[in-house]
């Protein structure tokens, strides 16, 4: 049996000065480099393919397959870009990883770049996390000085430059083509695909874009082998992942476990819901994944099972809300978020989120009528799958799922003439056991 929790990426976070090269190397860090350099790049790709690692940024696309799409006969330079723009509401795993152990990511970047034959790599990190950026800058500097980056790394003949690039505040840059636009110094608006980044990405060159956690997982796969990784998790969702528990749970935080663990198990590990309260609704993978309810507590948290339950695994951003929380207020706030973050490129997302927000705001204030719920669902139908990228789709998820599960609560706002909840009761600093 695999253990319930499997700390790999988080394993050194409690080490003294874990972010330093000394600490990282003391625990065997950068050993994966020599092992990788002893393999051919294709063999590295095959190992990652065999491990079954799937993208940890939300979509779950097989990482090794993505690498295999890079046309190696293309004469242009190849690039690796790490998506460290973690901004999906509820998602909070990459930021602590880069803060505590930036070298894990740097080591992963080197191995991954070697595999796809890139000589330049970028970490596109959101700008709003100053200390994380400091730690990344320092780690890269240390890695250069130690010969892990630069020319002829470890005598292998392989060269790699790594650039830490700070973003400037745009959720949409988590979308990989918008991220490339940002990295090229443009407005972060998604690009038309095809061509896909693997063919024409950064500077119209073949480019792999991977999430922080995906890349950070690579050194452990190289070190311990594909079978080790594939031995964890479920049949189609291999390996471990960081599960981020937040909200009305006793011990919120990062729990690294094999994919397939259930929320019930995780809440249990986290000391249960906060005292005197019970779970009302939750997101499995950030606000863009449809809400689930306590009836889904035993759904294995892997790509397939969460999908079958009508949502998405996403980034394993488990935001837990108890019965003190007004779902309409929660959804309105997310809707406002999507409106604020809509890039403006396509009509349904730009105009739709503008309108959704107004409809939601009226409902939250107890104005409007039941017809507004049908209008909301029809607006969502006109956005979902009609938008240029997934941001618009994400905006509809909380709305349609909340109406599906909590239609009566919307209606209660109408009959109550406003929100029937006390917002103070849901705060972290509310008196213990305060009634809803």
């Amino acid at each position, binding site marked *: *049996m*695999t*253990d*319930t*929790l*499997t*700390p790999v990426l988080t394993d050194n976070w*409690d*080490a003294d*000065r874990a*972010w330093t090269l000394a600490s990282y190397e003391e625990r*065997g*860090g950068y050993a994966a480099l020599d092992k990788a350099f002893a393999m051919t790049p294709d063999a590295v790709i095959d190992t990652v393919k065999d491990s079954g690692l799937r993208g940890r940024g939300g979509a779950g696309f097989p990482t090794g397959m993505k690498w295999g799409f890079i046309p190696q006969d293309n004469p242009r330079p190849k690039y690796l870009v790490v998506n460290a723009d973690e*901004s*999906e*509401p*509820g998602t909070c795993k*990459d930021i602590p990883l880069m*803060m*505590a*152990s930036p070298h894990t990511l740097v080591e992963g970047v080197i191995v991954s770049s070697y595999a796809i034959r890139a000589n330049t790599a970028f970490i596109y990190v959101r*700008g*709003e*996390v*100053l*200390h994380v950026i*400091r730690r990344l*800058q*320092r780690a890269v500097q240390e890695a250069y000085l130690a010969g892990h980056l630069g020319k002829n790394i470890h005598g292998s003949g392989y060269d790699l430059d790594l650039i830490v690039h*700070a973003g*400037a*505040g*745009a959720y949409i840059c988590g979308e990989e083509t918008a991220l490339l636009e940002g*990295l090229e*110094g*443009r*407005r*972060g608006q998604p690009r038309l695909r095809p061509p896909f980044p693997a063919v024409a990405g950064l500077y119209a060159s073949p480019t792999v874009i991977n999430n922080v956690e995906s890349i950070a997982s690579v*050194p452990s796969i190289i*070190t*311990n*082998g594909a079978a*080790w990784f594939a031995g964890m998790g479920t049949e189609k969702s291999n390996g*471990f992942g960081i599960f981020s528990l*937040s*909200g009305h749970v006793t011990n*919120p935080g*990062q729990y690294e*476990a094999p994919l397939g663990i259930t929320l019930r198990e995780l809440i249990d590990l986290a000391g249960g819901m906060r005292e005197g309260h019970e779970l009302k609704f939750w997101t499995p993978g950030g606000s863009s994944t449809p809400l689930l309810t306590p009836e889904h507590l035993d759904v294995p948290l892997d790509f397939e099972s969460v999908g079958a339950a009508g949502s998405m695994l996403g980034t394993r951003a488990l935001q837990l*809300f108890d019965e003190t*929380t007004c779902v309409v*207020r929660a959804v309105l706030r*997310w809707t406002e*978020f999507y409106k*604020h*973050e809509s*890039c403006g490129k396509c009509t349904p997302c730009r105009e739709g989120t503008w309108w959704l927000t107004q409809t939601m705001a009226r409902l939250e204030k107890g104005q409007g009528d039941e017809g507004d719920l049908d209008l909301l669902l029809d607006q969502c139908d006109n956005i979902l799958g009609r938008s240029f990228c997934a941001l618009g789709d994400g905006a509809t998820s909380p709305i349609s799922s909340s109406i599906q599960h909590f239609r009566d609560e919307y209606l209660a706002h109408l009959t109550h003439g406003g929100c029937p909840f006390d917002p103070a009761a*849901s*705060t*972290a600093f509310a008196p213990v056991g305060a009634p809803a």
Partner: protein
Amino acid sequence: MSHQPNGADGLERAGLGEKTWAEMREIADRYPEKRSGLLPMLHLVQSVEGRITPEGIEACAEILGISAAEVNGVATFYTMYKRKPVGDYHVGVCTNTLCAVMGGDLIFERLKDHLDVGNDETTEDGKITLEHVECNAACDYAPVMMVNWEFMDNQTPESAVQVVDDLRAGREVHSTRGPRLCTWREAERVLAGFPDDRADEGPAAGPASLAGLAVAREKGWTAGADRSATESSGAKGESK
């Protein structure tokens, strides 16, 4: 080649200073293609000017050989770039759903009241700019407040008021998971890729980041291999 139609070809505009011009060029030169430097260059402009100024926009345009309209389009797309002067400390209260529910809304209201400013406004003494911000990837520390993009975790209205009072009084304030707070302009300089000396301050991880690890340690759970192991693959691979 500049696109400036006014014929300022080759003539640098004054305003930013030689050092800043040189640093902006240095940023552009970090990248395979210069234009990639635009985002950090705009951070640098903010570190010098306290906001995005016309001089900053024009300097970026000239160095990168693009139009000022294009720079403006970028500068207005990203929310960290500010059109109005920012105070010494940018205080961002997360009011995305989870933090809002957990108390962010009340914190934000309290700070507006306490500082007597609205959203995206600066106190009269020029010390504090208050803004509500979107999810900052610290949900396990909700409700969260950012000061100059450093984490101030697990805030309450009272603790938030204390933070801004200390900042206005010039007292040293530490991030709950990081270093002594620097000024907003100093922070912007780091974002432009010019590190300061604070990387080693603060812990590796806050308590919530370690919550799962603590449980695993207590239970003796592992992933069945450690980083130095070389032959242990598949050790725990029996069950799927």
